[in-house]
């Protein structure tokens, strides 16, 4: 094995504990590896008849990217490209999501990982970074290259520093929002070219494990598609004695099988993804498929049935899941492939989501308008506060004095308002408010705005399509129906551990509203040339008459004969009589 020749190296090997295997740790021959990965697929039948599939891949790496001096340069499961980005730009936390379609909270309930339509990026930088804006600019350019997205269009005009809405999800109690940057690109269109680099970051690629299901022609033939990458420092163990980096890649899809399935309410893995599962990713320490069977047996039939059930408290609700462990050979049965089949039997009513929101633009004409945000608290008897974040581009000039918050036709004074006015062509408006939502109520937030006239080079190529305004973000601690499990590190499904929970009685929810599409006054784009031509003509005419006046030779002209005399002369000429 060549080891005997290198005793010193062998010692180093042992010390660095770079070798070994996690799954076969019983042998004792190989020490524990510093990195591990897990994969998970959650399938939740929605009451609308759609299917919600949520993939989560988590890579944990026990290393320190931000350590000064020592460079992290040897990668195993963690993707090298992301690791280099983390250490070069001193990133403490990075969240990026690409979403196509809008999550319909009223029909589908709360998503596991919420995301706004388009692209969203928020980053906490390490507090040693001196030039945060410079790092942010470079980081967006690099990420734009990694994910083949237009993130390079993120600049100071769509970046904000929220003061309260986006707290770090990982370890570290960073409160200084100077190191936070948040930007959305609601216009971004997500497609295959974004999925391919995302899949490349997975340890097994799309060759084995759950990722074989990700065929882009199926994933993008859906009502909702969202893929995300979340990187944050987390506790390595339950004592939290040391930290590890967590890379969480999530992919959420909602398939509309009712319309695409010729009206038959029946689906299977093969129908959804045109593939079945045959193996787990050999590198993953756990590989599981969860199916939400809480509403069974009246809602649907699931086959093959499994006796392994798991209950978890997700989004304030105790749910029951059938668990299929892909690392076990029995899961795949005789055919050596797992094809979950689900047949619908009946309909049932869904619990209305406790919090949801919508937004629209009111008003007429192209000069002024009004943004309405409606926040619904569907809890029958509990009031709770929500944080509303609005980032509005500078070309909609908000009249902040017209800001009104009303609940149940009475004024509802926000207990905290953070407003940063915009600067033309430099930064957007930022409005953050803490609003108390009375029980079972609709709270309406309205603010008037004026549309600015852009310079002719600032219009997008299709200005008549309208200009997007990113989603409002509503973050809230919603009272929970059941007691939450606050022990963060204990073994539980990945989808239930995305937002850290600190209280047993409430759970964290983030709701995104629809993005707005606003028409701006759009000029005729041949106008500049018309203006040039018109001005030149006016100048030329003025100049011509002026010139004429100056250079003309004036001379005294003999007064011409009156008409009668001329006529008389003509007659006289004919008659041969001397003229007058």
């Amino acid at each position, binding site marked *: *094995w*060549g*080891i005997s*020749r*290198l005793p010193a*190296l062998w010692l*180093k*090997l042992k010390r*660095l504990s*770079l*070798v*070994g*295997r996690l799954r*076969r740790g019983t042998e004792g*021959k*190989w020490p524990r590896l510093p990195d591990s990965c897990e994969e998970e697929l959650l399938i939740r039948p929605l009451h609308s008849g759609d299917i919600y599939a949520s993939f989560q891949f988590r890579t944990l790496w026990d290393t320190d990217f931000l350590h000064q001096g020592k*460079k992290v*340069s*040897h*990668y*195993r*499961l963690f*993707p*090298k*490209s*992301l690791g*280099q*980005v983390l*250490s*070069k730009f001193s990133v403490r936390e990075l969240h990026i999501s690409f979403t196509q379609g809008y999550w319909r909270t009223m029909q589908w309930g709360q998503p596991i990982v919420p995301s706004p339509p388009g692209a969203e990026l928020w980053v906490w930088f390490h507090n040693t970074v001196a030039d945060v804006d410079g790092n942010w600019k470079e980081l967006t350019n*690099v990420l734009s*290259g*990694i994910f083949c997205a237009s993130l390079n269009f993120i600049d100071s005009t769509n970046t904000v520093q929220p003061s309260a809405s986006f707290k770090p999800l990982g370890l570290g109690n960073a409160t200084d929002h100077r190191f936070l940057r948040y930007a959305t690109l609601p216009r971004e269109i997500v497609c295959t070219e974004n999925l391919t680099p995302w899949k*490349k970051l997975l*340890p*097994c*690629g799309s*060759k*084995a494990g759950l990722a074989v299901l990700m065929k882009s022609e199926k994933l993008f033939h859906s009502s909702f598609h969202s893929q995300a990458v979340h990187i944050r420092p987390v506790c390595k163990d339950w004592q939290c004695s040391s930290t590890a980096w967590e890379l969480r890649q999530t992919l959420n899809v909602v398939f509309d099988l009712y319309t695409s399935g010729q009206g038959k309410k029946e689906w299977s893995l093969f129908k959804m993804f045109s593939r079945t599962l045959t*193996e787990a990713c*050999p*590198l993953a320490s756990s590989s599981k498929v969860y199916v939400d069977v809480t509403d069974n047996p009246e809602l649907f039939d699931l086959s093959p049935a499994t006796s392994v059930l798991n209950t978890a408290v997700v989004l304030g609700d105790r749910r029951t899941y059938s668990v299929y462990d892909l690392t076990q050979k029995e899961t795949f049965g005789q055919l050596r492939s797992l094809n979950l089949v689900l047949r619908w039997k009946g309909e049932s009513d869904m619990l209305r989501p406790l919090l949801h929101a919508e937004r629209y633009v009111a008003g007429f004409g192209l000069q002024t308008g009004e943004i309405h945000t409606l926040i619904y608290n569907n809890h029958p008897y509990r009031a709770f506060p929500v944080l509303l974040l609005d980032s509005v581009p500078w070309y909609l000039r908000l009249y902040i004095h017209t800001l009104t918050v009303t609940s149940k036709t009475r004024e509802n004074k926000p207990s905290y308002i953070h407003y940063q006015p915009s600067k033309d062509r430099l930064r957007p408006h930022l409005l953050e408010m803490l609003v108390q939502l009375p029980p079972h109520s609709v709270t309406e937030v309205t603010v008037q705005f004026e549309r600015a006239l852009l310079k002719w080079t600032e219009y997008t190529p299709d200005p008549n399509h309208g200009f997007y305004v990113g989603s409002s973000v509503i973050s809230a601690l919603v009272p929970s129906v059941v007691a939450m499990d606050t022990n963060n590190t204990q073994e539980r499904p990945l989808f239930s551990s995305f937002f850290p929970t600190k209280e047993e009685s409430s759970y964290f929810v983030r709701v995104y509203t629809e993005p707005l599409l606003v028409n701006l006054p759009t000029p005729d784009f041949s106008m500049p*040339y018309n203006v*040039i*031509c018109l001005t*030149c*003509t006016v*100048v*030329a*005419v003025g*100049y*011509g008459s002026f*010139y*004429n006046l*100056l*250079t*003309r*030779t004036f*001379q*005294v002209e003999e007064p011409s004969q009156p008409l009668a005399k001329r006529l008389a002369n003509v007659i006289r000429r004919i008659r041969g009589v001397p003229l007058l």
Partner: protein
Amino acid sequence: MAAIETEKQRGRYAALAIAAVVIVLGIPLWWKTTETYRAWLPFSQINELDSLQLQLSVEVEVVLSRGTLSPEQQKKVPLSQTREQEHQIDAKTVLRYRYETKYRTATIMEEDALNQPSAQEADLSLHMLSESACGSVVVYIIPETSTLLPADVKVYVGQRRTALLRAALFEGTAGLKEVLSTLEPQVKQVVDTMSFSHQDILAALSDRIRVGQVSKESLADSMRAIKSSPGYEITFSLLNPDPKSHSLHWDIEGAVNSYIQPLLDKLNPIANFSVDSQILYYAVLGVNPRFDNSVSAYTLNADSLAHVINPVEARLGSNAASSNPVLNFLLYVPDAQHSPLFIRDHSKREIPSNAFHSPRWGGIMVYNVNDMYGPEAEFPVDINISMSKVMGVFLAQLRLMLGVQKTQPPPGFVLQSAGSEGLADWELDRLMWSRSVENIATASTTITSLAQLLDQISNIVINDNIAQQVSSAVTSLQAAVAELEAGNLAFALQYSREAILASERAFFDPSLLHLLYFPDDQKFAIYIPLFLPMCVPIVLSLLKIANEIRQRRADKLAKKD
């Protein structure tokens, strides 16, 4: 009648005045407000750089030890000689080599050092005595009778910049001149080995000159070596296409520290290097190896190797954090079903290292693990990769990529194998010579073509920062050429690197493109509505005035007649 005449005269003066205002005020105003900003560039100095006249100066010190000269001859040393060679490569490239040879006798300490029992020890103690400057060569002449070198060895080249040359004892009757003239060809041979050779320099200039002038081997060497750049990224990738059967472990961190890092530290004057590694699972080669029954193994033929890289490269990923060129070294462990896998050369023989390299890209090594476990092994098998075997191959490939060629010594020469760094000082000097020349050539080509471009297209805006980059590139280039002439190799390389950086930055500056595509027809479309109605009356009245003057002159002439 007189009144009419004065009125006509006034009209004429008015037309002339307006024409004068338009010409004196209007046209310069228009010109000034619509001109593109073009900062001043040192065009004359750039034109001088276009014809590359390089002079490379080497300091050679010849130390005559006791027993090589007679006492009379010794009295005449120290003395120095200068030898020059000039090569006119083409109309624009002239190379001049200047060897300044200083002869002196050995000091007592040096004599002591030369009395060491072996050549290695002598080399080491001579190095302790004095550190010779970068780019220089010291040749110690030792007598025929010396026991330092074995009988058949004439020249010993050490790890630093010293060489020992065995020479016959000269008779006391011969003058020093004759002695030195007999020594000179031997010294020249040593210097050609330890310092640059004409072929190296030609290969470094291969972008500038016609291919025919460079010998095939040095051209191949220079084409294999990655282009000169201020920094390189070296990436080691372990490709494991079959993680279900093989669980591979490689101590890349330890291996890099013990094998690669010493060489890179040594090469620090040439460029900055950063090393990283990754493991790629389910990464496969682009070709299907063929099963060969005669050896019961899979084989890859030399002509199919060209297709191996492309599919792998999609997985490698580029370095997100820098834009330096990347050197890839891939270790491929074939999957259990396709093991063992051997690479064959053009004559169908197996390559002992089982590796190949791709010029300016990197290297691939196939590492078979099928004999490390039996048929009854439980999958996945834990396998520890022997890094000494792997790194030996990668180190050799890395040297090729960096252009550190193995020199073929002339007969009678012994080259001391380099120590842990893997590179002797004089080898580094050779690389620095050719890199300096290459950098100077590249930077001057970049700057001259930029100057030509700016000269030809008058629409391009030249901002102050570009002008500053260009002039700093020009000054660095001039400094590099001057340092080469003075024989300060380290400074020459430093300045040439600065020149290349500044010239590239100027050449690729995005601000050059801003007004590049501003078509003339659009410009005329905008100007015509203003200019046509303004100019027509002026031109017409000027013509009329000119006609009248001519008419009057003709009248006057007629009157005179």
